[in-house]
């Protein structure tokens, strides 16, 4: 089942990038998709984790919220950079994330890094180490709404 989904994903990706629908190129796309899925299977890489975009709840509930957060903190960093006094207070914080699955932990760590002003340095199930441009920004990552939202996504299809 997952193999078929992986093939369809690869093939649609080829068709969208190519945009030329001659029999030869469509067949070549199908052949390439089969080859890629075959190699990925040999490397034991075809599993549910290969389909982050197929997790619909992530796409439609979490991403819009994340984009809003990126805009908000992007604007905060912009104001700091343009401020003549440059009011930075770089801070490291350590905290324990709520997520228990690898996908959840990666989503949380990447979300922290994507929002300007905070970068995940270490990401383990026991502890995240986050560098923040300001003290408030860094402490804002501890027990955050983001933490709860990503944890709520875990286990959802």
């Amino acid at each position, binding site marked *: 089942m997952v193999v078929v989904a992986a093939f369809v994903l690869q093939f649609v990706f080829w068709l969208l990038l190519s*945009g030329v629908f001659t029999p030869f190129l469509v067949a070549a796309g199908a052949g390439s998709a089969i080859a890629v899925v075959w190699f990925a299977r040999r490397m034991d890489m075809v599993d549910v984790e290969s389909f982050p975009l197929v997790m619909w709840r992530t796409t439609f509930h979490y991403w819009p919220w994340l984009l809003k957060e990126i805009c908000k903190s992007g604007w905060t960093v912009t104001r700091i*950079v343009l401020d003549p006094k440059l009011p930075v207070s*770089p801070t490291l914080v350590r905290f324990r994330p709520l997520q228990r699955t690898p996908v959840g932990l990666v989503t949380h760590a*990447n979300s922290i890094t994507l*929002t*300007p002003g905070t*970068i995940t*340095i270490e990401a383990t199930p026991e502890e995240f180490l986050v560098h923040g441009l300001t003290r*408030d920004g860094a402490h804002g990552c501890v027990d955050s709404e983001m933490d709860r939202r990503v944890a709520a996504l875990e286990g959802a299809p």
Partner: protein
Amino acid sequence: MTVGAQLVVDVASWALLLAGGFFSVVGALGLLRLPDFFTRMHGASVTDTLGAGLILLGLVLQAGLTLVAVKLLFLAIFIFFASPAATHALVKAALARGVKPQLAPEDPTSKP
């Protein structure tokens, strides 16, 4: 598309392109002004999220409903998955080579 609708799309896409350009310049300015390696990464992240995102969105409006728009959206998705991984790798490499972050003095009143 009518001339009026085309004008609205053009204005919107130019607004997005200009905003994206503005945030890219801010990111570059941050890269120059901020004090150390780690804080400079924060400046750069404005460029590769807001800067790249808004410019790609403006270009999607210019492309209309075509395969070019689909490719631009793929580009946005890849940037959003790859750039945090690259940032993370860069920061870990810096720490492993012994670059110490300059930290603000601890403020005892705002412990987590």
